[in-house]
């Protein structure tokens, strides 16, 4: 089976107008404009097999949306090759787009002034979906996303959550094999987010739809994606499983302990001296934090402390959250860190 998405050495350069400062600059701009070349996507390559849900993350301006737009046939790449569902998106655009669905969280694809159902019917005509298929598909989607009450309302009177669910339906009416989602959960409340995530999982399971989504909400990624591609300044800095990303960057697990008596730091360190990588951070003597790397078993480490006869009042486990990990990576975002990540996979 050929992969759903193949990207090789993809690059996109924009020419952006430079505005000179001040009145004199503005007047000079009037006669001779200066342009700056901005490379949004710098020679990236990746392959996504059919039926995979892949998260595409990165800071604002990292080039995520630009990539999605090239994959969806909206933008023409400056160089490199793209094949999506077997097509070169921008060359055979009209035929190609029948195979994909696209949702932009920040833009509506529904007609603003008319009822939702009118938009759907128009889309049916646009994609030439046979009436029977359309009925079946619409019924299924409407039931699944609980839209029955909204169908006759004009889009401008829907809440964001309602609109987003309608957008999903609109992008799926023609049963695309690949779905691109650009920040699909932006601005939504937790209930709608969860609903949308569950819906996407089910869609992927039942129809084998390949999904590529960009998001800033890492819970989306945790809930949905088996794979993450991380972008920084137009380059891929990580491509692989979410678990691996966590394992590599996680500072391990932490055990927070509260004692009923004063405990000397040396005593604690002695307890775990033979466990490699275990670190202590001692508070006021009544509390301490033990960092346990993933190679060391938690029960092993904890057993040392519990078995020592120290009076323990409270134990709390924490794991480095994906948010923290990603924040860390964005912050360091340096090439050295990046090379480490890519080299490791």
């Amino acid at each position: 089976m050929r992969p759903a998405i193949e990207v090789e050495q993809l690059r996109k350069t924009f020419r952006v107008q430079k505005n000179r400062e001040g009145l004199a600059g503005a007047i000079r701009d009037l006669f001779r404009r200066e342009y700056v070349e901005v490379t949004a996507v710098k020679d990236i390559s990746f392959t996504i097999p059919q039926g995979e849900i892949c998260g595409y993350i990165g800071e604002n301006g990292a080039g995520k949306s630009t990539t999605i737009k090239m994959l969806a046939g909206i933008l023409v790449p400056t160089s490199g090759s793209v094949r999506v569902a077997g097509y070169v998106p921008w060359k055979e655009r009209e035929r190609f787009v029948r195979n994909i669905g696209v949702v932009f969280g920040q833009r509506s694809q529904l007609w603003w002034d008319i009822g939702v159902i009118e938009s759907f019917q128009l889309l049916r005509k646009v994609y030439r979906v046979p009436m029977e298929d359309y009925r079946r598909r619409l019924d299924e989607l409407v039931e699944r996303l609980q839209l029955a009450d909204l169908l006759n309302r004009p889009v401008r009177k829907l809440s964001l959550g309602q609109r987003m669910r309608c957008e999903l339906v609109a992008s799926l009416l023609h049963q695309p094999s690949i779905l691109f989602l650009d920040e699909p959960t932006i601005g939504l409340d937790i209930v709608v987010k969860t609903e949308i995530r569950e819906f996407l999982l089910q869609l992927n399971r039942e129809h084998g739809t390949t999904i590529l989504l960009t998001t800033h909400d890492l819970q989306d990624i945790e809930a949905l994606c088996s794979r993450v591609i991380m972008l920084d300044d137009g380059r891929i800095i990580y491509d692989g499983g979410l678990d691996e990303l966590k394992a590599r960057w996680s500072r391990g697990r932490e055990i927070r302990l509260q004692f009923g008596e004063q405990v000397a730091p040396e005593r604690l360190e002695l307890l775990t001296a033979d466990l490699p990588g275990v670190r202590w951070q001692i508070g006021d003597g009544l509390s301490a934090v033990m960092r346990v790397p993933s190679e060391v078993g938690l029960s092993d480490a904890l057993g040392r402390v519990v078995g020592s006869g120290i009076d323990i009042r409270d134990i709390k486990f924490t794991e480095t959250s994906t948010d923290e990990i990603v924040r860390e990576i964005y912050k360091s975002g340096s090439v050295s860190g990046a090379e480490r990540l890519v080299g490791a996979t």
Partner: protein
Amino acid sequence: MYLDLIRIRFLMMLAYRVNYYSGIIIYAVNIGAYYFFWHAIYGDLEAIRGFTLSQMTTYVAVTWMARAFYFNNLDREIANEVRDGSVAIQFVRPYHYLLVKMFQGFGEGLFRLLMFMTPGLVFVCLIFPIELPRDPAVWLLYAAMLAFSFLINSELNLLTGMGAFYIENVDGLIRMKRVAVDLFSGLLVPVALFPGWLAALSEWLPFQAIAYLPSAVFTGRASGEEALAAITLQAVWAAVLLVSIMLMWRAARRRLFVQGG
């Protein structure tokens, strides 16, 4: 599918009733104002450059009515969609963006043709002394020419709107084009009344094909071979503009730069 686009635009126009009513009033006021304006200019004169007052009144009424049909805001719509980036959505649909715009414009034109041009014309005929042609062939020819008016005007709008791919702010260009269309098309003053050099200039511009030529045929200023020449000229302009659109579109596609990442 394209028929449905027309239908949807129709629905959208109906959704904003106030626009509809105010549109009728604006056109009525315009025609009325021009009637009295020409009335004052003519005074005791029998004819100005071969135009009798009644011919002039008919010309004004018919030209404005035609404008209701051919006029649309496709240029502004395209410019806005390019500027706010929503044009991106149009590219993930299996249709041609410009063709869709054209049909939307046609839906709008058809709406105005049926909903206020026809009732408006009846209304105007009752108030002002207007002579309508009696020959059905003229009506038929006029209908064809009106279709070309729409085509040419919309093509110009597409070209202007596509300017948004090249310059950040096309408002100035759009306004300039609008003034040029209103003036050179003969909407404000029939081209026949232009001073010689201006008339010569407008003969070389596509604008007169939008309003002046059809109205000239309709009011009987041009007939027979002259009328045929007029419609041929329209067809030529429509074709020339079509080719320019296609060329510009190809270049614009590569330049497209979606605002907001």
